[in-house]
């Protein structure tokens, strides 16, 4: 047991050091690395619903977009009139001083994390009472509705979009990338610690029980609804944070193409978790990394055909690879996952068939 912990902690420390050193090792890929961190956060939090709880949500994008809009709005609205800012369409009539920028970002991120959590809590009771595909379609509708409605609201830019405050000129040229990288990496570490913490407690077992048989779980005296809502709120918290960071990183928010982008981010998080293997701690992380490398490596290669490639990728992964990388590894090396397989027993079963 102790040996395991040692091995794991060495791994964690190694990853942490690599994470901190990464922007200096690969200075050209800072933005990509930050996006990767955000993607991992999204995939990991989606996994709480889709993997552990069995509630396949297309609606986590709601919290992501909400966080994005909230963070940017707070960051602007704290110092300048918001309506005029969006109307000017990113013209530099208002300039944040560095102190204002960072203050706004900090408060904005806090709001971006807390409000989606509250929203998740409020709508959770209604939405999470749905099951299976009804839940999936309902959350899909929720995400699209949010995108369409926010695209009609004037104060946050309506159709023409919302330009987030530009990064102030402090430090060297690289400081923008470094700032956003470390911010997203920090959120990633936070997410990982939180999720890992959750997965070691009874909470995870309850979520699994809900996935396996909700009625029986309820019959065993578990207040399933409470745990479902808490699970969703945890997801919403980190999705909101990720959205806030992504808004600052992209620098421009559009209702249907950036914030509530069900066609890209909303599917990506599902796809990444499934690719890595849902219902595992490391699956979404591996899936997100592989997916992001694939996407960045080949997206330029397809040039305009990205969505065609994405569609094909979804179909292929879902049909031929539904267990994901972790599932494949588990089948290949069951001992590594702490499963003991009796070869004789296995053969006997095969013969029985």
């Amino acid at each position, binding site marked *: 047991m102790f040996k395991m912990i040692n091995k794991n902690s060495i791994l964690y420390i190694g990853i942490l050091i690599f994470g901190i050193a990464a922007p200096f090792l690969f200075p050209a890929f800072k933005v990509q690395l930050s996006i990767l961190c955000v993607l991992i956060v999204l995939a990991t939090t989606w996994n709480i619903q889709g993997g552990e709880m069995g509630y396949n949500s297309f609606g986590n994008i709601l919290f992501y977009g909400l966080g994005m809009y909230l963070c940017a709005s707070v960051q602007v609205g704290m110092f300048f009139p918001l309506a005029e800012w969006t109307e000017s369409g990113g013209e530099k009539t208002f300039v944040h001083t560095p102190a204002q920028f960072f203050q706004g970002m900090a408060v904005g991120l806090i709001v971006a994390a807390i409000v989606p959590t509250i929203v998740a809590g409020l709508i959770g009771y209604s939405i999470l009472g749905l099951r*299976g*595909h009804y839940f999936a*379609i309902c959350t899909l509708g929720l995400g699209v*509705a949010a995108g369409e409605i926010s695209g009609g609201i004037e104060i946050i830019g309506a159709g023409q979009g919302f330009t987030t405050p530009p990064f102030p000129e402090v430090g060297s040229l690289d400081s923008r990338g470094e700032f956003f990288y470390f911010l997203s990496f920090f959120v990633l570490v936070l997410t990982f610690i939180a999720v890992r913490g959750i997965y070691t407690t009874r909470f995870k077992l309850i979520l699994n029980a809900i996935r396996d048989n909700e009625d029986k779980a309820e019959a065993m005296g578990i207040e399933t609804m409470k745990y479902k809502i808490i699970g969703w709120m945890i997801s919403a918290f980190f999705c909101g944070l990720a959205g806030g960071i992504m808004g600052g990183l992209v620098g421009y928010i559009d209702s249907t193409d950036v914030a509530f982008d069900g066609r890209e981010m909303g599917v990506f998080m599902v796809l990444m978790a499934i690719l890595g293997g849902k219902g595992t701690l490391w699956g979404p992380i591996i899936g997100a990394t592989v997916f992001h490398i694939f996407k960045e490596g080949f997206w330029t290669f397809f040039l305009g055909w990205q969505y065609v490639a994405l*569609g094909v990728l979804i*179909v292929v992964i879902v*049909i031929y690879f539904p267990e994901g990388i972790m599932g494949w590894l588990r089948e290949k090396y069951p001992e590594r996952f702490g499963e003991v397989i009796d070869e004789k027993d296995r053969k006997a079963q095969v013969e029985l068939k």
Partner: protein
Amino acid sequence: MISVQACLDGILLGILFALIAYGMALQWGVMNIINIAQGDLVILGGYIAYFMYLYGIHPAWGVIVSPIIMFFVGIAIYKLVINKVVDRDLFISILATFGISILFMQLMNFAFGADVVLANSDYGTTMLFNSNVVLPNSKIFSAFISILFAICLVIYMKKSKLGRAIRATAQNARAAKILGVDTEKVYAATFGINAALCGVAGALISITFTIHPYMGLPYTIRSFMIVIVAGLGNLPGVAMSGMGLGVFEEFADYILGTEFRIGSVFLLLVLILVYRRFKLSRKREYLK
């Protein structure tokens, strides 16, 4: 008068929705698959009619040509993708068809461009109530054609051998298999018929309204909504809730403004599902 206009528009629009929803109910009932690409099949059907219009053929012929082409497109989709997800988890089929939807959306965007297009049928308009209410004849035509197709399909499902096989499979796939129904063939035919229905609806939509490569998903959501309100295999219900949805949409368009039209459709879906959930949870049941 505007409300009369909106009502009539909505009813004529709703009949089209009901046709699409009927296709969805068919495949949902038979194959237990929710096809997110439904709307994209509709749009593809619309583009077929639009292309006939571009080449100088009257787009109304699209009502005949489009379902024939779409039938084979549907069977191709079934053979390539759907038959691998029929017996699997429902979420797998939702995600797989979502992938198909994205694929179609983008392919149509490449092939036909991202412009909003309309096939002009030159049918003129009908004025009612001292020309306070204007009804394009194309809308009346499309409603008439959809009703015709729906009636034909119902009769076909009742009388023909394939129709009986489809209904038997919907009731119990295993029993049907035992009794010698080739369920694989039935599934393929069902998906083809669904795609053909989408083709008809799409051709009619391209005549009466506009089509655009990215407009597919709202049609999927509308038909899903109609099916869950009406229930599977409840044909009058599908027609009624289709018309109701059409009227709702026209009023939402008129009251809230066009930019919230699609948003209100999706929001209505969420509200309907939540309403159903609360209604059922009183009996400690849930939607399934």
